[in-house]
């Protein structure tokens, strides 16, 4: 069968924008120009009079025909602060962020819908804007939600290990503050879908860029008040997701539009809308103390991370859930005595928070890695020395970290040492003084990270559900189903490799089916693809292999133990000349001679169908409470040059060593590494969602929200270690996030090292040229004054 890459490159991709049905209508949203305002009047008559317009949906219709958006995560029971908003997919009387949709125009074609959208008249009464998390938490801050006491949406408090003892034993305590700007994952394709409400059957079917069809079905059905059995969601080819296509929100309006018009209705989001009204991430302030000994032994942390969550409006708790890994990732890969970490989330008049590669793990690790570099500097140690001193050692696995994570395996020192070698760190450092004499500011950054992967947490929709099915069809081809959508991360190829390796069949005879809501699962998120779905698929294939052996042994009249399955053939090692192809086996099992031709025991056990559906759950999570199952390891070393006149940073060398356990496919893993690293570089250097004082987003296009181009992106040298995970079916670990975690931190660390003569702590991102320049100017002024 034609592989996916060949299909896509031949122009046969079917992305959301390619969906076309007879009589399909088009939907366009009308967004608010205000960040916070009361809707005084909303007039749709002029829009409705445009020839070709079918209907206009507003917040009034949402309230009339739909339910409020359903709760997706709720930690109220734990005694923490956890607030949720009672909101609909579009608001009736108040807007809370710039771009928030207030109406949706449905017309025969998209151009007509756009024209009519301009004629929707809205009168607003602007309200005071809450512009950032720190402002939002002030006592007199304008409130976003009337029924909340204040804007504090979330406050979580964690005690890991023995924080008090840690600080009592410390020789020194260092105060650390960091600030990370607001970013978005921004795949090149926006969101889009087609909804078809069948008025005769009262069923709804949708096709589109759904990263998690099963969750989308649950949430859309709840919003529309339909039984889930009457709703089906199909993922089509998805033009990148990175977490940003998990939630279903505007999709509810598209579904309602189809119900009200009885037509297929399509919505394809302009890229600008995806930035303005899409999921955002990061935007955190860290502040706290780190306790350590004079010899560099790490002891403890007491810190608070404050998140700017934007509005709590579209995905009901899932955004705030991201605060958990931010807090829990702080211990990273080191031994500690104890920590007290608090996570605060404030609601502000910005677009909503949701998943983006990292989902908080990146924040905790970036904070602690920055702190380690400051401590090393103070103690006169190299960044690698302090890490090597505190690493959990290869013989300590499984390691129960103070935060309840159970680390599966790894060689942390080996990973870091290899990266240092690849980047020739000693050589660069030896030349540093010479470079400075030449006016070159060269710096080396060193970061190491674990990647907690495969999330399973209670009280939310990310509980660890997954389902897989492997079926040998009657013609011997093999179909695979799971909840792992293909979003460019290699799901289809990985599943096909796993199944063909286990069954000994040909890879091209395996077809991994597009994901629909027919199979249970929370989809690919939190790098769970190689943990949950891959384990479930492997488990199904292993059970299926047993059935294949039983049937084949019966047909070949040989001992089951002597069977060999390879190259698409099944035969006995005692009689290699008599072979069965999968086609022959399937045909014999199903039709000629059929099930009656199989031994009675197989039929009595109901083992005659070559079809297995199963599930998988982490072996460590139930007893330990570890929210993650596998912990891939990475080390990043970057060498940069900072132009102190322009503030621009150039990456001269980038080395990344990665240990994702057993590698399913090296090319796919490398691709994930490259992509993640460059996204992290964008975060470190140029990407920023900047809101003005009125709460309007100023960086809402590719020309202002600067993702790296091919010229800014560096060459990347990658090497692998393979320490299998004992906890997954394949030995593989979830991967894909470690590269962004390491890269965004390592670039800042390298800039800080390059700017050593100015004694600048680089604790704010992105380090844009203007920001770097301002640091240098301030440092020079300070140096002059002290003279």
């Amino acid at each position, binding site marked *: 069968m034609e592989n996916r*890459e060949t299909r896509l490159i031949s*122009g046969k*991709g079917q992305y959301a*924008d390619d969906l076309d049905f007879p009589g399909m209508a088009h939907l366009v949203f009308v967004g608010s120009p205000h960040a916070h305002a009361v809707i005084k009047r909303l007039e749709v008559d002029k829009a409705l009079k445009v020839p070709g317009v079918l209907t206009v949906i507003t917040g009034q219709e949402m309230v009339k025909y739909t339910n409020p958006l359903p709760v997706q995560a709720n930690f109220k029971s734990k005694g923490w602060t956890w607030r949720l908003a009672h909101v609909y997919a579009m608001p009736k009387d108040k807007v809370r962020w710039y771009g928030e949709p207030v109406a949706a125009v449905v017309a025969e074609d998209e151009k007509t819908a756009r024209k009519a959208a301009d004629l929707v008249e809205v009168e607003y009464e602007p309200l005071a804007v809450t512009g950032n998390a720190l402002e939002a938490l002030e006592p007199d801050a304008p409130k976003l939600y009337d029924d909340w006491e204040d804007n504090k949406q979330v406050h979580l408090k964690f005690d890991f290990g023995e924080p008090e003892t840690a600080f009592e034993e410390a020789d020194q305590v260092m105060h650390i503050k960091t600030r990370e700007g607001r970013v978005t994952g921004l795949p*090149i394709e926006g969101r889009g879908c087609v909804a078809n409400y069948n008025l005769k059957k009262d069923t709804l079917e949708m096709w589109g860029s759904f990263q998690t069809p099963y969750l989308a079905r649950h949430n859309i059905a709840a919003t529309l008040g339909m039984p889930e059995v009457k709703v089906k969601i199909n993922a089509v080819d998805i033009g*990148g997701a990175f977490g940003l296509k998990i939630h279903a929100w505007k999709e509810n309006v598209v579904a309602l539009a189809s119900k009200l018009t009885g037509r297929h209705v399509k919505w394809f989001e302009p890229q600008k809308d995806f930035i303005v009204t899409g999921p955002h991430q990061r935007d955190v302030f860290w502040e706290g103390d780190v306790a350590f000994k004079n010899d560099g032994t790490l002891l403890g942390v007491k810190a608070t991370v404050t998140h700017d969550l934007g509005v709590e409006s579209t995905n009901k708790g899932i955004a705030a859930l991201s605060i958990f890994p931010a807090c829990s990732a702080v211990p990273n890969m080191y031994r500690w005595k104890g920590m007290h970490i608090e996570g605060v989330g404030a609601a502000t008049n910005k677009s909503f928070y949701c998943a983006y590669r990292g989902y908080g793990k990146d924040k905790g690790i970036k904070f602690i890695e920055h702190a380690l570099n400051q401590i090393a500097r103070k103690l006169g140690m190299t960044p690698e020395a302090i890490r090597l001193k505190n690493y959990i050692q290869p013989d300590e696995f499984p390691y129960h970290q103070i935060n309840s994570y159970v680390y599966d395996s790894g060689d942390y020192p080996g990973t870091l040492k290899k990266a240092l070698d690849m980047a020739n760190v000693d050589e660069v450092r030896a030349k540093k003084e010479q470079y400075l004499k030449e006016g070159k500011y060269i710096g080396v950054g060193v970061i190491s990270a674990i990647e907690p992967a495969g999330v399973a947490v209670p009280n939310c929709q990310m509980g660890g559900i997954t389902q897989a099915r492997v079926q040998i069809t009657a013609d011997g081809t093999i179909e695979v189903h799971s909840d792992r959508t293909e979003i460019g991360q290699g799901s289809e190829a990985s599943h096909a490799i796993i199944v063909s390796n286990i069954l000994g069949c040909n890879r091209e005879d395996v077809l991994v089916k597009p994901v629909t809501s027919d199979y249970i699962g929370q989809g690919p998120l939190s790098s769970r693809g190689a943990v949950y779905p891959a384990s479930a698929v492997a488990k199904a294939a292993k059970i299926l292999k047993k059935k294949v052996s039983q049937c084949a042994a019966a047909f070949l009249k040989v001992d089951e133990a002597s069977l060999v399955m390879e190259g698409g053939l099944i035969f006995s090692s005692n009689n290699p000349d008599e072979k069965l192809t999968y086609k022959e086996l399937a045909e014999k099992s199903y039709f000629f001679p059929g099930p009656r031709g199989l031994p009675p025991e197989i039929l009595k056990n109901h083992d005659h169908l070559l079809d297995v559906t199963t599930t998988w759950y982490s072996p460590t999570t139930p007893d330990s409470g570890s929210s993650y199952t596998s912990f891939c390891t990475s080390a990043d070393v970057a060498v940069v040059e900072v132009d102190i006149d322009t503030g621009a940073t150039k990456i001269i060398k980038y080395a990344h060593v990665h240990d994702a356990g057993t590698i399913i496919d090296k*090319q796919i893993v490398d691709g994930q590494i490259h992509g993640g690293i460059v996204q992290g570089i964008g975060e470190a250097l140029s990407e920023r969602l900047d809101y003005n004082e009125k709460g309007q987003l100023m960086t809402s296009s590719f*020309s202002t929200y600067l993702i790296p181009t091919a*010229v800014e992106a560096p060459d990347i040298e990658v090497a692998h270690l393979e320490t299998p995970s004992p906890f997954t079916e394949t030995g593989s670990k979830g991967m894909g996030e470690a590269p962004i975690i390491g890269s965004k931190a390592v670039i800042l660390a390298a800039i800080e090292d390059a700017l050593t003569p100015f004694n600048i702590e680089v604790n704010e991102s992105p380090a844009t040229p203007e920001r770097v320049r301002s640091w240098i100017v301030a440092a020079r002024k300070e140096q002059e004054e002290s003279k």
Partner: protein
Amino acid sequence: MKMPVTLNINNTTWNLDIDANATLLEVLRNNVLNQQSVHRSCEEGECGACTVLMDGKPVNSCLVMAASAQGSTIITSEGLMRGDELHPLMKAFVDELGLQCGFCTPGMVMSAYALINQWEDEELSDMDIRKAIEGNLCRCTGYVNIVNSIRRAKQAKDAGNWW
């Protein structure tokens, strides 16, 4: 307002009756021409997902008024295929995994095709490649395997495997 326009698209001449204000992107993607490899994203010439060759030069088809393309020769990535056979450049992308989600890929392929087609020298540096695709944004690959794909395609061309 409708107006007639003649375009040669992938070696077929089309006499079309188009909206006067339609972009080349809209016309290529419409039901008649159905060039679905030409992807719509930013619609302001920033992302390069809609790149096609117009008289041999890569253009953002979202920025070209279809009416102004009167009489020109357009090649989309579908036009590089020979029947079901992948162009050597496309084959290189598949072999090097120069695509992940595949959304930027057709536009990326057209910029790369224009580069290699007009490149006379033996030497093609990685920076030459990177500069040629600077207008094609990719969020998945970090560009590494794309650069590898294009380098490999250049070798194919040097070996006479090209059209």
